[in-house]
């Protein structure tokens, strides 16, 4: 920690729990996809959980804490370019929320997860497992979506790789521990940035719980289709 830096709480509990639960679930998804057989039941269940988490994160991106909102971290292309240049020159530039490139990575990861979970709902494995909505489309369409489900995972993996490489770059070369911040919620920001009006406004955890319930209900309605 440099002397001019101040610890500032930036990530609320919902964001942090979302992040690490998602990490565990994505690993679990990969493992169960490899194990196949009886594990496919669990693959599907954790897929529903991921879909609910992604829905929740999108809602939280509009109604959650200030640092969790898309409006606080989606930067214009010019700002992204400037930030990229600073990165390459190894000049640290601290942000209370995601940095300009990290912000778009959040969107890319959420989009890839939506595609992955969405195609999974319609997928089949030509054995004895099919997504809960596979019956709504033709076998041909289900096969096509299964192929996307397969290849999109590689895309997701690529994004995750980039994401991990970026935080390691920040840690190793810029001495910014973003990983630790995602655990503790606290970032060390330059004193001026910490004092200068970046103080985060945190939304109620009860609101997070309510939005999670809404997201889970949406997934339930999609999967079970009681109507």
């Amino acid at each position, binding site marked *: 920690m440099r002397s001019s830096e101040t610890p500032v709480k930036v990530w609320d509990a919902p964001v942090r729990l979302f992040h690490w639960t998602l990490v565990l679930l994505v690993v679990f998804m990969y493992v169960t996809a490899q194990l*196949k057989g009886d594990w496919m039941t669990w693959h599907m269940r954790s897929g529903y959980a991921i879909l609910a988490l992604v829905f929740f994160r999108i809602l939280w991106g509009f109604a959650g804490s200030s640092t969790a909102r898309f409006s606080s971290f989606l930067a214009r292309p010019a700002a992204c370019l400037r930030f990229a240049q600073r990165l390459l020159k190894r000049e640290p530039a601290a942000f209370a929320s995601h940095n300009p490139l990290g912000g778009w990575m959040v969107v890319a990861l959420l989009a890839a997860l939506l595609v992955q979970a969405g195609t999974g709902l319609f997928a089949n494995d*030509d054995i004895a497992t099919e997504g809960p909505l596979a019956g709504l489309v033709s076998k041909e369409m289900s096969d096509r979506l299964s192929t996307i489900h397969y290849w999109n995972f590689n895309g997701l993996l690529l994004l995750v790789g980039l994401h991990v490489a970026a935080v390691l770059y920040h840690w190793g070369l810029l001495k910014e521990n973003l990983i630790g911040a995602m655990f503790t919620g606290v970032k060390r920001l330059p004193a001026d940035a910490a004092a200068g009006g970046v103080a985060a406004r945190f939304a109620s955890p009860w609101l997070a719980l309510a939005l999670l319930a809404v997201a889970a209900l949406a997934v339930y309605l999609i999967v079970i289709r009681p109507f």
Partner: protein
Amino acid sequence: MSKKLLAAAVTTAIGAMVASQALAQVKPETLVKQRQAAMTLQAKYLGPIGGMLKGNIPYNADTVALNATFLENLSRMPWDGFVPSTQGEKSKAKPEVFKDPAKFRQAAEQLEQATVKLGAAARAKDEAGVKASFGPVAKACGGCHDNFREK
């Protein structure tokens, strides 16, 4: 050599000749159709067993016994259609099928053995046994698809 044995030998020889001739005459596209038909039917008869074990449809031991017995036979049917003459046909078979036939044969045998166990449990109306032997069947399907079938 007894007459009976001679007759048997002659019959076998003629049978083998007819069989090999018949095999030589089967068109590659027919062989691909044979493989795909056998695969489609396996999925058709495996699916309901999976659905019953997951509780999506009520368990019916008679249906399971019938389906599992069909599967036991069907799981032996696709393999003689995988001959090099079919390599030019449009299919999802990977070149590895023909490059490493021993490994392919091993994968096929894994399925055959798994369906024998499933069939025995199903005919014995042993629901726990069906449950236990279903996973290995699905796993054998998937394992072989991973290595030998295009996505």
